[in-house]
């Protein structure tokens, strides 16, 4: 097995113009790790344009007409799957969605066999979610088309990080220099990882707030400040991103109870007082009201950007599909 590859490199790069002269010189979007700020900024710039389009009455374009998009979800999802499907349709792709119940993985087929089968159908974009970290990368090695990671295990969820970044950039004007708090179950969260990489790449100050049991080992080496006390972590914050707490964390001795978690790490108006007055509150959804976030905070129209995140999600996914199929549409298919 070689370390190859055609996808993004596995180490962060300096902020330099890519040798190819392309702003996004990657075949796939497997993660934020390894993307340089130029590539990230390019995706966000393209997405900005689609936000405007999505607010018009007629939202469809012919940009990608005739191309085929397969959404392959090995893990249950409603919002991400719908968001990708809408994004594809608005760009004019023929979209097909498969989720775990209908796939032959259940019948024992290996992921690489599935890849070979799908590849033979000549899709142009494959969007995939899988419960195992690294599974989307493995599949991408066998696919000729662009592969977009819609979440793999605990590893990455790049379009979520991009939509979060777009939300912040539009609300705050810039990501650079912002103090951004990510709070909750970081250990099991791909959203947290992708956001850490992206926000660091774009020059934000990233803080993590969580009980020690929900922080993975050596996380501080990824360029974040770690806090266990929420009030300390929230001090002077520009943005607070809450993570969803899975109910199963009560098993495995991560936490004693939801009640205790809410008491110390639930985001309430009271705790938010130490943050900046114009603090932006975000959540990737679906929310557990009264667990990681109080309802009055989630519904605070001045501060909460939660619905806006969903809106940005469609635009960002349109941008990813658009950018990754540009060479193909320009006749450079290899």
């Amino acid at each position, binding site marked *: *097995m070689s*370390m190859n*590859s055609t996808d993004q490199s*596995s180490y962060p790069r300096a902020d330099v113009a890519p040798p190819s002269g392309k702003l996004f010189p990657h075949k796939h979007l497997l993660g934020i*790790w390894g993307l340089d700020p130029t590539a990230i900024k390019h995706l966000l710039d393209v997405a900005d344009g689609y936000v405007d389009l999505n607010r018009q009455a007629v939202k469809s374009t012919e940009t990608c007409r005739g191309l085929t998009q397969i959404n392959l979800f090995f893990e249950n999802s409603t919002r991400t799957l719908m968001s990708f499907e809408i994004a594809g349709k608005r760009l004019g792709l023929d979209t097909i969605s498969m989720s775990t119940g209908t796939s032959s993985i259940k019948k024992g087929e*290996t*992921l*690489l066999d599935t890849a070979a089968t799908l590849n033979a159908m000549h899709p142009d974009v494959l969007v995939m979610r*899988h419960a*195992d*970290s*690294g*599974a989307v*990368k*493995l599949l991408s090695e066998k696919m000729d088309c662009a592969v977009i990671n819609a979440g*793999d*295990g*605990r*590893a*990455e969820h790049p379009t979520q990080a991009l939509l979060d970044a777009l939300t912040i950039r539009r609300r705050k004007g810039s990501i650079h220099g912002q103090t951004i708090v990510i709070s909750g179950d970081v250990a099991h969260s*791909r959203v947290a*990882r992708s956001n850490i990489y992206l926000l660091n790449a774009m020059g934000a100050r990233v803080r993590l707030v969580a009980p020690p049991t929900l922080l*993975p*080992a*050596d*996380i501080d*080496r*990824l360029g974040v400040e770690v806090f266990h006390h929420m009030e300390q972590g929230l001090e002077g914050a520009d943005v607070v991103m809450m993570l969803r707490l899975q109910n199963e964390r009560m098993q495995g001795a991560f936490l004693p109870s939801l009640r205790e978690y809410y008491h110390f790490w639930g985001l309430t108006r009271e705790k938010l007082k130490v943050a900046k007055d114009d603090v932006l509150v975000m959540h990737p959804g679906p929310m557990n009201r009264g667990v990681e976030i109080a309802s009055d905070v989630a519904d605070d129209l001045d501060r909460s950007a939660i619905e806006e995140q969903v809106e940005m999600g469609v635009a960002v996914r349109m941008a990813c599909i658009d950018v990754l199929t540009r060479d193909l549409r320009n006749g450079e298919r290899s």
Partner: protein
Amino acid sequence: MKTAFVNARLMDPATDFDGTGTLLVNGNIIEAMGKDVDTTSADATIDCGGRVLCPGFIDMRAHAVDPQSALAGGITTIILQPNQTSVIDNDATVERIRHRSVDSQVVSVYPMGAATQGMRGEQIAEIGQMQASGAIAFTDCTQAVADAKVMRRLLEYASHFNALVVQFPQNAELSADAIAHEGETATRLGLPGIPAMAEAIQIDRDTRLAELTGARLHFALVSSRIGVEAVRTAKARGAKVSCSTAAHYLHLNDNALEGYRTFAKVSPPFRSEDDRVALIEGLADGTIDTLVSDHMPKSQDVKRLPFAQAAFGVVGFETMLALALAPVHRGQLDLMTLLKALTTTPATLLGLPTGNLSPGSFADFVIFDPNKPWRISEEKLLSAAKNTPFDTLPVQGQVWKTIADGVAVFEQG
């Protein structure tokens, strides 16, 4: 039929002999060894060209027999682990394997029996009867005997038979469902991690139980600095414990997992760079007693999967010597110390008659060129499967000839 192996750098870890000379083999027995051996009676003479000639390697931990691959790696004695298709936990299975080994007459195979029935960690296996049939040690192989009470009784019972118990030093609770070394790499890749402390805790508990019971205990595959330190401390206290590591742990750290390379998925996991260095130090100062291959052939079908689903293990027979020679070339490890860990020490621990070049011993030996440069190539491996993380790696040191039972059973082409 007498054969004289002349112009060899004879290295016998049993006597610390290291000098240029001749080894005279009569049939399958070593007749003479030394600087001034009379070769006039020899029917054939083989010029070793100054290469090292030492006892054939004894690999204390192999999961498959794979004879051609073993001999290409200079291994003349394989200790087969009990995790076979049907677990080696009874005397009939032990006998079947011993017979097959005698039939093949190429590489000697000695099975370890399971320590507990079905390797389930609940009831002690039939250690006495398995030992009588030829099982030379007892282990649950890929998992620790977790229950302290079961482990205590196992050690007590085994000590009655003076049987060596081999424990896989990894605390089961701290490592449940985890697949990588707990640290920065696993965190970034989103893989559940096993803390190095899981190893030290298991070693600490079981050395105490060994002291309590007076049993002989060996820890297979120590992988971390604190694991090595736990063994060092226990030995200093006088506990009858020993330990091993595998050659691949001397060469790779957890950076090898980058890109979710399942060929680097091993158990215990590749740990940090500091841990890797500590293993070389431990081998050099004798804290780590034996070096093994942990040879585990796995097909592409079970390796080319998402990391969490992929099988553990690498093939190790043919790369063991070259990987272990790297720290020797760097001046971190004495060659004689390395050879001890590959021959005399495992022979002593297991009570085997091989592992030395003394006149009268069986002619199981290997001749290798410690300096020869070559490149590991998965295509050229003779093993049953090609799951090596070392494909294309340039290495130094290669087996020239392997002689088992007086017969040259492998010669470098």
